[in-house]
């Protein structure tokens, strides 16, 4: 479906001495997303997730590298590819001079939807995110979570075949987040390909068929959530001692229990999760 080859994105930024330097936000990224898959991109802040998505959605040009949709380079026929794409951006980007309904209508018009279809889909999607009664309000009058829900609703109006979601569930309450998960699963079941970034690792674990872990613009690893956990060891022992919070991975509960028995302090034995893999792979000190 989507193939990325040697993708590089560089920005010119000012460093501490106010000199302009080249900063590599995405560094030689290659990967492949299969049709109908929910594909997660995980990484610490500044890892290059948003920049990658912005290149895939053609909001910004790669410095180097190629992107293919269904085997065809995006350079060849960008408009045809853009028709297939829906985007939930990380940053809220409504038109503040238009009402909620007009923002939705603008989206429908930009995607060449007929007037009836537009009306029907806008109502449907607004109702789905429980914002049906805000249609005549200005976006700035909505709460943070409402704006996020509206972003999701907007991205789906034209029924995209490929959906990019950049931290879509940030600031959503747990109930809404679960409903969005259900929606994403339902979309994938119908054949929509979903590329999602998130800092909620349990979200990636719950949703994604495969996950790419990136750090400092580079791809660290790519696999299914289960495989990540398995490769570390299925069971984790966690404990606190004078050096701080510690953990170690084991193949089986017996091994883990035997090890925990040797510790002076009490320990906690649990299943390894994707978060453990994430922290292992991106470096334990990262983000501290």
């Amino acid at each position, binding site marked *: 479906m989507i193939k990325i080859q040697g993708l590089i994105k560089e920005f010119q930024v000012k460093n501490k001495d106010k000199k302009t330097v080249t900063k590599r936000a995405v560094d030689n990224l290659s990967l492949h997303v299969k049709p109908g898959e929910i594909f997660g991109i995980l990484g610490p802040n500044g890892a290059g997730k948003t920049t990658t998505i912005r290149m895939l959605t*053609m909001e910004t040009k790669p410095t180097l590298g190629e992107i293919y949709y269904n085997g065809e380079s995006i350079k060849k026929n960008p408009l*045809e590819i*853009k028709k297939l794409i829906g985007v939930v951006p990380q940053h809220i980007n409504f*038109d503040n001079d238009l009402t909620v309904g*007009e923002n939705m209508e603008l*989206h429908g018009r930009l995607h060449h939807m007929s007037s009836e279809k537009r009306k029907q889909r806008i109502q449907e999607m607004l109702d789905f995110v429980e914002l049906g009664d805000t249609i005549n309000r200005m976006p700035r009058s909505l709460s943070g979570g409402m704006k996020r829900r509206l972003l999701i609703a907007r991205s789906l109006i034209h029924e995209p075949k490929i959906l990019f979601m950049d931290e879509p569930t940030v600031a959503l309450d747990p109930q809404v987040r679960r409903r969005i998960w259900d929606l994403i699963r339902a979309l994938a079941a119908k054949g929509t390909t979903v590329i999602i970034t998130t800092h909620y690792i349990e979200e990636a674990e719950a949703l994604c068929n495969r996950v790419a872990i990136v750090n400092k613009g580079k791809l660290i690893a790519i696999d299914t959530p289960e495989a990540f956990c398995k490769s570390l060891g299925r069971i984790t022992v966690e404990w606190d001692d004078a050096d701080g919070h510690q953990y170690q991975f084991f193949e089986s509960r017996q091994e883990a229990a035997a090890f925990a028995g040797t510790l002076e302090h009490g320990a906690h034995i649990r299943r390894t999760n994707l978060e453990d893999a994430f922290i292992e792979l991106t470096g334990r000190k990262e983000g501290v």
Partner: protein
Amino acid sequence: MLQDICTVFWRDWVVLKRRLPKFILSRMVAPMLYLVAFGWGLGRNIQVGSGSYLDFLVPGIMALNSMNISYNSLTPLCTERIYHRSIGEYIIAPMHFNAFIIGKILAAVLRGLISSAIIMILALAFGANLNITPLFVGILILNCIIFAEVGFFAAMKMDSYEELSQVNTYVLLPMSFLCGTFFSTRTLPEVFRWFIDVLPLTHTSYLLRGISTQSPVALESVAVLAVYAIIGFILGNKAFRDQLK
């Protein structure tokens, strides 16, 4: 392409429609002051050529006003680009970038024409004699296009409202006064005059005034304006594409 141009125009029309009474009222203030101060107050004692100073003045005011209005119609794009980031919706949409630029320019032309119509009505009420022909309207539109493009370019290149208003202060305001709007550039010092005569607003002023007072006009000025409009479009397109860097 046409559909996309309409979409972009539709958006600006929705916004304008909501503020139309306010827009019209606020657009009356500046021209009204010009007419009162220079046309009615000062102008009664001034004779220019054969007609009254008011007849001389009104085309100049229409030129400078349409310049200001169309420029300022597109400067809000700067905040839409940097702060609201709403331009992103257009960039990811299956749409030619030119459709975006053309739609925006047309919306600015509409605003420019509305305010020109307001001036015309006010001027007639002040007793001016105007000869409005299709060519007159065409030149007015061309003038709006050029300065809408300047506004578009500035909105894409400048990083704050502060910088945008500096264009107003250092470029548009001097042009408003010097480009044959209130007085003939013939009275300016030679070197300075040469510079002023190259500027698009000077060509617009002379064309509009010539047509309005039914005097002969230099039609090559139309070609000059057309060249400005084409260059403006190319620069606007480039500035928009630079957003993808």
